[in-house]
């Protein structure tokens, strides 16, 4: 036997004997061996330690590769059921795993989804846990431009999967090419993508992997972002994962900081949008990558991208002169668009646009011919902008020249303001990012929720932003709005109150910042049912806008409408009408047929409808629908809202069932298409449609729709949502109309209970609920119980809505009917009079 072989045999022998001995005996054995062969003894000791620490590593490896083996045979998975989803067929296969088309296996209605089976090793066990924790935040990301995360879990073999909204579309670059979209349309499309990204950023979610393959455009032209926030969970956290995480990126669209493995913030998404814009405007990548591995990565970190206008003109092969088309496009890109794209693509995150909203705003300005931010504030530049915007005016000569001087003074002042603004925005942004993107947002392996991060931010403000009250005001407003976005209004209000006080101290009482803080405060108070408390801030915000802009300005119109909604909520319908009419006359004078004008028309119609002026309501609502359709040109949630409101007005006023049904069906289809099947707004449409059918004397179909709406109860439609109480009541009323008051009673009681739990005492809907429940008890001849509820309900409605309101009269009619059945004709007659129109 060779010497190494003999040594190995002695090691085996020593290890075997030590293994079988008790601790003391083992020590003695090792000590004795160490006397003659210290190396051998040490190795045996190491192996014994490894033996102790063996946590099933081999089994783990075998099992995980075994799972991978399974995941590599996707075709075998079709037909399998995962949770509520049945896999139909594989539709894609990528590095992360396999994507299946799936349908809901447990639902009455057809619902499709995309299920991604994640390959083992893509999600580490730890990041899977975190992903589960954050799934709710991702699932709450409800925006028409974002494919929603619906569900997720693990197969029995332990293969993780995600269920996403299924998007039938093509990547945005292919879409733009296939439809031969103009430059303007391409920019408009990118702005819509920006909206969706900005929405997610407001919910503190960064996409991290924006690229054409993740931005699909549907047949109707709606861009949809896939895989929001998921890139974060890929390959992070584990030892050596930085490297793996890096490689999971698509280098062309990854920002320099992502490639370097530095912290990723919202600025990284701004960068990726810049690459997207570059590609859509020029058809090229911003970088000319060197050959070989790491070429693109190096280019992204080091190369200055050429101007888009240069890139399109240059690229003719063989040194041929650019085509006329290329020259035309190059001229079109030169200037603003070059500047905008390059600003988004800056290597240093802090030198890019401070937010996606700013990038989008600059694109809007460019399309509108206004000066863009992405440029030094040179006077010549602004003057040239001004002249091109007001070309006609300048031709008028001296008068125009004077106007130009005044306008320049104004725009120079606002340029200085814009610079201050930008600095502050960066600081605010930086602070929020620092808190939320702190190196270890995960403590003790536990996810820090958005709420915790906000609380942490709240605690740090005092110490870290001392002496910077302007920044503190901005941060607190952001915090307040985010709390409000989470529905936690009682947390939101103190931040907003504080932000308002700081803004007043810094800027004085008549500044736009103060007005914005007032807007936010009014909105939060209205949302929490404190319309009375919302009125003062809404009025002050309006006064500031009038002072700053004069009467005829869209900002003033928007402020009037905001005040109008507060007054409507408060129940002061006359004042609400006056406010909305003021707003409308401003929009009409400006000729601004915008989304803001449609909102005003809609709110005015609702106010008039509440007051019983249905003719006026119908006219304004028709105009609202016309305006909003012209604004969007395609399916959009706001168009659907305008339709359902018009449907209810048409029905209430003219009992035109066929037009109302047509509008409801169109709105329902549009909402499902744009928002998905489980969105609360879909439930609302079902409810409103059902309500109309009940009134039209079709309680069977109406009940079906109410129950369909109720089937959406759950995470996205909690019982505190007003639709739930309403739909329960509708289902109960349908039961009654179908001659089943006993079946109706539990539904009506539950309706009243959920409303009482979520609405302020004294709300007219509680009175309405009492009245309807009373009617149900009267039908069961439980008269005394019924009387108490019916009287209380009728009285409450008279108090809240007035004696002349249709609902008040309806409730009085129910009281009259009670006394008729009870054999008390005198009281019946008196209440019958109150009920007659």
């Amino acid at each position, binding site marked *: 036997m060779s010497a190494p072989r003999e040594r190995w045999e002695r090691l085996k022998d020593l290890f075997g004997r030590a293994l079988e001995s008790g601790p003391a005996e083992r020590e003695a054995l090792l000590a004795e061996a160490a006397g003659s062969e210290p190396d051998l003894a040490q190795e045996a000791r190491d192996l014994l330690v490894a033996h102790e620490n063996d946590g099933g590593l081999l089994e783990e490896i075998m099992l995980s590769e075994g799972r991978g*083996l399974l995941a590599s045979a996707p075709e075998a998975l079709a037909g399998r059921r995962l949770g509520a989803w049945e896999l139909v067929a594989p539709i894609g296969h990528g590095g992360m795993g396999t994507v299946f088309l799936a349908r809901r296996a447990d639902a009455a209605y057809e619902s499709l989804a995309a299920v991604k089976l994640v390959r083992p090793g893509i999600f580490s066990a730890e990041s899977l846990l975190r992903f589960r924790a954050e799934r709710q935040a991702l699932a709450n990301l409800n925006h028409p431009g974002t494919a929603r995360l619906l569900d997720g879990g693990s197969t029995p073999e332990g293969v993780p999967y995600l269920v996403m909204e299924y998007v039938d579309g093509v990547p945005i670059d292919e879409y733009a090419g296939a439809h031969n979209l103009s430059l303007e349309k391409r920019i408009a499309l990118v702005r819509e993508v920006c909206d969706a990204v900005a929405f997610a950023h407001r919910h503190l979610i960064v996409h991290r992997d924006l690229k054409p393959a993740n931005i699909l455009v549907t047949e109707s032209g709606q861009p949809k972002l896939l895989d929001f926030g998921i890139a974060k969970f890929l390959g992070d956290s584990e030892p050596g994962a930085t490297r793996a995480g890096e490689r999971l990126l698509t280098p062309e669209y990854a920002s320099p900081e992502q490639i370097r493995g530095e912290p990723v913030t919202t600025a990284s998404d701004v960068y990726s949008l810049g690459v997207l814009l570059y590609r859509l405007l020029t058809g090229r990548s911003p970088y000319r990558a060197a050959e070989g591995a790491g070429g693109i990565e190096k280019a992204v970190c080091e190369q200055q991208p050429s101007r888009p206008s240069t890139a399109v003109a240059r690229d003719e092969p063989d040194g041929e002169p650019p085509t006329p088309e290329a020259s035309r496009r190059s001229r079109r890109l030169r200037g603003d668009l070059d500047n905008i794209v390059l600003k988004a693509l800056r290597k240093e995150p802090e030198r890019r646009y401070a937010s996606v909203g700013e990038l989008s705003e600059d694109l809007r300005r460019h399309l509108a011919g206004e000066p863009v931010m992405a440029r030094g504030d040179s006077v010549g530049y602004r003057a040239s902008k001004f002249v091109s915007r007001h070309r006609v005016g300048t031709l008028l000569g001296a008068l125009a020249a004077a106007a130009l001087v005044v306008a320049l003074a104004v725009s120079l002042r606002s340029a200085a303001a814009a610079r201050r603004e930008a600095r502050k925005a960066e600081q605010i942004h930086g602070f929020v990012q620092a808190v939320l993107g702190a190196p270890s947002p995960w403590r003790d392996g536990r996810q820090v929720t958005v709420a915790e991060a906000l609380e942490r931010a709240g605690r740090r403000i005092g110490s870290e932003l001392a002496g910077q009250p302007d920044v503190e005001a901005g941060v607190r407003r952001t915090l307040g709005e985010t709390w409000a976005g989470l529905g936690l209004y009682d947390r939101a209000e103190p931040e907003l109150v504080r932000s308002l006080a700081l803004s007043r101290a810094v800027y004085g009482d008549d500044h736009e910042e103060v007005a914005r803080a007032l807007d936010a405060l009014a909105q939060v108070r209205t949302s929490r049912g404190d319309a009375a408390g919302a009125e003062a801030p809404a009025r002050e915000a309006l006064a500031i806008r009038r002072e700053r802009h004069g009467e005829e300005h869209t900002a003033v119109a928007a402020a009037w409408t905001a005040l109008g909604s507060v007054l409507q909520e408060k129940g002061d319908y006359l004042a609400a009408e006056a406010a909305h009419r003021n707003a409308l006359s401003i929009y009409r004078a400006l000729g601004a047929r915008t989304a803001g004008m449609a909102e005003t028309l809609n709110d005015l119609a609702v106010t008039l409808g509440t007051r019983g002026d249905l003719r006026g309501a119908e006219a304004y609502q028709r105009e609202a629908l016309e305006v909003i359709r012209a604004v969007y040109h395609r399916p959009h949630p706001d168009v659907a809202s305008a339709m359902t409101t018009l449907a209810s007005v048409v029905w209430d006023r003219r009992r035109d069932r066929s037009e109302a049904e047509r509008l409801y069906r169109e709105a329902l289809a549009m909402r499902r298409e744009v928002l998905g099947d489980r969105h609360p707004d879909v439930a609302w449409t079902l409810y409103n449609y059902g309500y109309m059918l009940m009134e039209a004397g079709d309680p069977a179909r109406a009940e079906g729709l109410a129950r369909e709406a109720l089937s959406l109860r759950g995470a996205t439609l909690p019982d505190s949502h007003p639709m739930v109480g309403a739909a329960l009541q509708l289902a109960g009323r349908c039961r009654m109309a179908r001659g089943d008051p006993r079946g109706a009673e539990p539904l009506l009681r539950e309706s009243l209970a959920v409303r009482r739990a979520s609405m302020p005492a004294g709300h007219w809907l509680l009175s309405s609920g009492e009245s309807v429940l009373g009617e149900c008890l009267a039908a069961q001849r439980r008269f005394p119980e019924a009387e108490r509820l019916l009287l209380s309900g009728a009285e409450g409605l008279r108090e809240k809505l007035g004696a002349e309101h249709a609902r008040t009269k309806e409730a009085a009619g129910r009281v009259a009917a009670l006394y008729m059945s009870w054999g008390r004709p005198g009281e019946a007659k008196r209440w019958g009079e109150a009920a007659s129109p």
Partner: protein
Amino acid sequence: MSPIDSSDSARTSRARLDALMPEIYQELRRLASKAMSAERRDHTLQTTALVHEAYLHLAGVHGLSVESRPAFLALAAQVMRRILVDHARARMAEKRGGERTRVTLAEGVAETPASSLDVLALDEALERLAAQDEQLVRVVEMRFVAGMSVEETAGVLGVSSATVKRDSALARAWLTRELTA
């Protein structure tokens, strides 16, 4: 590879089994795909289960005797190890390609999951261990890949159960040390 048994009949049977290698490979792959589609709630994919299932199938087809079962399993464990390694290598290669998909999470992305690295690392560690002591590697394959009992393993190797236990503990400790170093 050292002979595992000196008796003539065992050698014959071993030669017969060797001829079955390609078939065992196919069978294990087929079973792996099938296991994925099976609607078995309690199912956990384990190499041991696959190896045993492959035995049951092939024993039926080829009329293998019960006595050849341990030898078959020992062989299938080696094949299984091969499959795992091939699969890990294929995945490493695939990452360099990467297809475009309509609904993608990380299209064209690289993928180097820890588990493939681990399987390849384990395979390399087993090769190093084999250079030192072939029998320990056989023990690992039989015990942990094929899930054979101590007694079955001892029978195939022609050693005592105590030796299998000691070798098994030593091999695991040695591999753990190699893989976590």
